[in-house]
């Protein structure tokens, strides 16, 4: 994993404490990269992602008034997809990302108690301490999940 630069936070998912819930600081070179990290952080709360296989394909489209809301909407759409079908994405490709619209393709599989580890459920991605900002070395976001 490449470093963002001296004194900067490394690219990747950085969990932080928030009493009952799961907070994450996401650092990536690109904005789509942040969205992918967010999805990985979400799935990582619920299962051990290493056991997921990229078998089936799903497409997701989300609209929101601004980029930060789009991040919340993206994660809540993934939660909806999981809640209704059991699907979790292993490989994620962001196909379109504007300030108000996102389209993505995911390859993954439905969670299965025989093959996968079940960790903690997530109620929703929240607007609490939500931020998406551009930095000299890329993009950074914070988001908190209600568990």
């Amino acid at each position, binding site marked *: 994993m490449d470093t963002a630069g001296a004194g900067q936070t490394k690219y990747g998912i950085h969990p932080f404490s928030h009493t009952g819930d*799961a907070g994450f600081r996401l650092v990536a070179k690109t904005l789509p990269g942040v969205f992918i990290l967010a999805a990985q952080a979400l799935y990582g709360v619920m299962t051990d992602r290493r056991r997921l296989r990229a078998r089936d394909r799903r497409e997701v489209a989300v609209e*929101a008034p601004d980029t930060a809301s789009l991040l919340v909407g993206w994660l809540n759409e993934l939660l909806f997809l999981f809640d209704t079908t059991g699907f979790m994405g292993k490989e994620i490709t962001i196909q379109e990302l504007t300030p108000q619209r996102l389209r993505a393709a995911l390859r993954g599989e439905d969670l299965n108690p025989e093959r996968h580890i079940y960790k*903690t459920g997530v109620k929703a991605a929240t607007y609490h301490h939500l931020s998406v900002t551009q930095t000299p070395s890329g993009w950074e976001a914070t988001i908190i999940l*209600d568990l």
Partner: protein
Amino acid sequence: MAKPKTSPRGELQLRQIDDYRWEIPPVGAMRTRGLIFATQEMLPDLRQDQSLQQVANVATLPGIEGPSLAMPDIHWGYGFPIGGVAAFNLEEGVISPGGVGYDINCGVRLLRTKLSRPEITGRVEALVDTLFSNIPSGVGSRRRDLKLTYPTLKEVLRLGAAWAVKQGFGEPDDLAHIEAGGQIPGADPEVISDKALERGRDQLGTLGSGNHFVEIGYVAEIFDPELARALNIFPDQVTVIIHTGSRGLGHQVCDDYIRVMLAAAARYGIELPDRQLCCAPVKSPEGQEYLGAMAAAANFAFANRQLITHWVRETLMQVLRLGPRDLGLDLVYDVAHNMAKIETHTVAGKPKKLCVHRKGATRAFPPGHPDVPRLYQTTGQPVLIPGDMGRYSYLLVGTPQALEETFGSTCHGAGRVMSRQAAIKAARGRSIIQELAGRGIVVRGAGKATIAEEIPEAYKDVEQVVRVVHGAGLSRKVARLHPLGVIKG
């Protein structure tokens, strides 16, 4: 009057009123004071997170009646603090999904049996295992045996626990022992999104994840023998507590309406010190729609707890080889702790309809109140305060003091003090299941990490929280319950 421009900033002043009451005097954009129920010892923790600021933020919302309240289990949440209570008049006041929470009508019910603890000695593990297989819990819990059509689901949303009783899950008499009769009026399934419906259709009768649980326990101590007798509670009595809410359907409703309210708040010119306080006037179309959607989700949760009760009864009968009459599993009461309700309260000496938000707070109406079931008219409304996993829970009743001071509200449980990460760290190298077994408690968790996350040290001591509400006169202690076996989401 000039509209206040800025939200409260800087270190908030706290003025002590008595041993259990602390006031945040209005400052900046606050329209009223904050009133926090807590002891001196609890204050350092309160100051550590932003819960006090959140109490102050709620006080800036239009149409607020009385103070912005905080119960002793307060900790920071999304917009409103958890443990927050705020009432708004219907003329100018607002309704806010953040004042209810994502898990609409997360709540708890207490069931009693005719059995004493010695009668289930040696059977607890079998009970827990069977509960675990009969009641889906954990991440993505769904029922394979109960997937509702949309018309049936909409019936559930309209009728709540009454739907479950109609299908044979429980008795008609159960409804009298549920807050609001297990059915919030005005529920409108047509303002529930298709996404919420899709999430909910196979989740009825499931526990979900997080801090949800079903717990078999016993009455360890009785504080008020007269009240206990009136509630049919006796020493060593085997009890069951069910703690769960409206599952994915409720979460989706909340998320849907937060988006609606973010836009609405701007349109109605409501200044928000925190975006998560997004709201609309109660009487606006958006406000009315949210009320209808929230009521529908609440009814889903009432039906959910009623259905889970059915499988609890089946499990106990099956494992203990008892018929229903010998088991005598009956509902003591079922309360919500995430809800907004239209209630009539006395304001300036006159009855007034208010929209009361309780987020992580429980209704606690006194003896004689018309909304308290006939059976509890002399005792007051039962209140169940679940502790954390492995520690005790409390049964209390509501009081006139609560009605006068907190719109008939009390705490809801022990708040967390440790993050899940910190709890997992603290649990490392320990076998929590063994530790609990050593104290005579059997635990089964659906998720790998969840047991570690729920270690007792991660929570405030519920005894302290209950001491405050009892000491402040908001609720009266009846009994303390200890766990024997728990299934956790």
